[in-house]
C-alpha cells in the first residue's frame, strides 16, 4: 500500500480546472519532484496533499484513509501530525529566534523541547545561529531553520514548495545536500520546483501542465 494515493482528483475554480483528474501514488521513502510551468497547478496540488485544501472531487488517501472529505478541523490535526512544510518564503516568525521558531512547531504538535530543537538545528548546520532572530540570518540560513522546523515532529511526508526559489547556488546546494541526507534516512519528500537541477536530483519527476499530469518518470540520473 502506498503512503499517499490520489485518485482522480480535480480542483475547479469557477470554470478553471486548476487540477484536472489527477491520479498518482507516492510510496514511503520516495523523493518526488513536481514540475511544470507557472499556473499548471503545482501549488494547488501541494495544498491538497498538505491538507490545506480539499479537492472538488476525487480521493486523497493518506496512510490508508481518505481525507478528501474531512472537516477543516480534522485536516488541521492530520497536517500537524503527518506533514512537514517547507516554503519558498521560509515564513519564520520574525519575533522569535531560530530555535524558538522550531519550537513553535513542537508546541502545536505536542510539547516544546528546546534540546531537541537545538539538535534539529545542529543537523542543518545552524547550531551556532540558534539564538538569532530571522532578520539576523541569511536567506539560506532561514531556509535551513524552516527545514529543521518541518522535520522536528518526524512527519510522514515533507512537502517543499520551491524550497530553493529564493536561494543562490551555494545555498541551493546546501539544501539539496540536506534533502539527500533526508532521503537516505528514509524520509518521504515531495518537492515542487521550477529549477531543472532541483528536479533532476529527485528520484522521480512528475510534470504538470494545465492541471494534468503530462509525464511521470523515474530519474535516470538518480544515484
Amino acid at each position: 500500500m502506498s503512503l499517499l494515493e490520489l485518485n482522480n482528483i480535480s480542483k475547479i475554480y469557477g470554470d478553471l480546472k486548476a487540477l484536472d483528474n489527477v491520479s498518482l501514488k507516492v510510496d514511503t521513502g520516495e523523493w518526488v519532484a513536481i514540475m511544470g510551468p507557472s499556473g499548471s497547478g503545482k501549488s494547488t496540488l501541494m495544498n491538497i496533499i498538505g491538507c490545506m485544501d480539499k479537492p472538488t472531487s476525487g480521493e486523497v488517501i493518506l496512510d490508508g484513509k481518505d481525507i478528501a472529505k474531512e472537516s477543516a478541523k480534522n485536516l488541521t490535526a492530520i497536517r500537524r501530525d503527518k506533514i512537514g512544510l517547507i516554503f519558498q518564503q521560509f515564513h519564520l516568525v520574525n519575533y522569535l529566534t531560530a530555535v524558538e521558531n522550531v519550537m513553535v512547531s513542537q508546541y502545536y504538535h505536542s510539547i516544546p523541547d528546546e534540546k531537541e530543537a537545538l539538535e534539529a538545528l545542529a543537523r542543518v548546520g545552524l547550531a551556532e545561529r540558534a539564538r538569532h532572530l530571522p532578520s539576523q540570518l541569511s536567506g539560506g540560513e532561514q531556509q535551513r531553520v524552516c527545514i529543521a522546523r518541518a522535520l522536528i515532529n518526524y512527519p510522514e511526508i515533507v512537502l517543499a514548495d520551491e524550497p530553493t526559489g529564493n536561494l543562490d547556488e551555494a545555498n541551493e546546494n546546501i539544501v539539496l545536500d540536506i534533502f539527500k541526507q533526508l532521503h537516505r534516512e528514509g524520509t518521504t519528500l515531495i518537492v515542487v520546483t521550477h529549477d531543472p537541477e532541483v528536479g533532476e536530483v529527485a528520484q522521480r519527476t512528475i510534470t504538470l501542465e494545465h492541471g494534468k499530469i503530462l509525464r511521470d518518470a523515474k530519474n535516470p540520473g538518480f544515484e
Partner: protein
Amino acid sequence: MNKRKFFLKMITSSLMRRRSRMLVALLAIAVGATILSGLVTIYYDVPRQMGAQFRNYGANMIFVSSSGDAEFTPEAAERAVAGIDASELVGYAPYRYETVLIHEQPLVAAGTDLAGAKATSPYWYIDGAWPAADGEMLVGNERAELLGLSVGDTVTVIYSTEQDEADEAGVTAEASLDMKVCGILETGGSEEEYIYLSMEDMERLTGNEGKLDLAELSISAPGEKLQSYAERISEAVPEISARLIKRVTESESTVLTKLQALVLLVTIVVLLLTMICVATTMTAVVTERRKEIGLRKALGASDREIIGEFMGEGLLLGGIGGLIGAGLGFAFAQMVSVNVFSSSISFQFWLIPVTILVSVAVTGLACLMPVRSATEVDPALVLKGE
C-alpha cells in the same frame, strides 16, 4: 519547557519585539485606564469635596421650637447638636433675637456665638473686624446707613421691656449697654437690618438667660443623611424641631447628581473610545500578521490556539495598560482635585484591581472581532507567492 511557558514566551516576545505597534494600543489602554480610575476617584470624592464647597453657602439645617413661636433652651440645643457626627458638623450658631433701641429707633438685635456664626455663614462679608472682645458688635450694612454708624463708633443700645407690660407697672424697665461697632456686615440679605452681638453681651443687656429663638447648623453630609439627622433630633429632643433648609439641600443634591452623571458619562465615552482604538489596532495587527497566522495554522494550530494567542497578547496589554492607568489615574485625580477643589484626594486602593480588571475586560471585548477574523485566515496562504 512546558506549553504554558512557551505560550507566555511567544506572547511576550511578540509584544516586546514589535514594540511600536503595540505601544499605540498600550497608550490607548493606559490613557483610558488613567481617565477611568481618575474619574472614578473623583466620582467618589466629589460629594465630599463639593459638600465642603457647598458649606460656603451657609446653613443647611435649623432648629426651631416645636411649639409654635415659643423659644427653646440652649441645653436642648446642645443635646440636639451632640447627636451630629463631630466630623460632619461645620458650624453651629444659636440665635436669640430681641428688639432694642439705638438713637430712639427700634431694631432687631441678634445674640449669637460669633465663632459659630462665622462658621455657618462663611459668605458674610465684614467691613472691619469680627467682634473680639466684650462690648463689640456687628451692624448690618443697611442699619448702619440708617443710623449713620461706621466702624469704630460707640453707641448706646437700649433694651426696654415691652410697652404694654411697662404701662401696667407704670414704669418702663430699661437697660442699656454701650457697644462699639467693630464691623459692618454685608450679606445682601435681611441680616443687613440687624445688629449682632455675643450671647454674653445679649444676656448682660436683657438680663434673662437660657432662651434661644433659632439655631443654624451647617453640616457636611448628603441629603438623605441630613434628613435622617433631622428626624432623629426632632424625636430625641421633643422641644426642638430640626428642619432642613430645602433650598440649600435640594440644590446641593441636584448639582451633585448632575456632576456625577457627567463624570459617569465621560467615563463611558472614554472607555468606548479606548475600545475603538484597541479594536482598530488589533485589526491592523491581525492584518499585518496574516502570513504568520497562516503559518501557525499550516503548522497545525487550531482556531482555539490562534484565538488564545491573540487574546493573550491583548489581555496582557490590557493588564499592563490598566496597571499604568491605575497609578496615573490617581495622579490625575489628585491634580484635578488640587486645582479645582484645592484639597487632596483620598486614595482608593480597591481601584487598582478594578481598573486592571476593567482594562482587561475592555481590551478583551475590543479584541473579539479582530481575533475572530484571525481564525478565518487560510493556511494555504503560506504557499502563495508574495
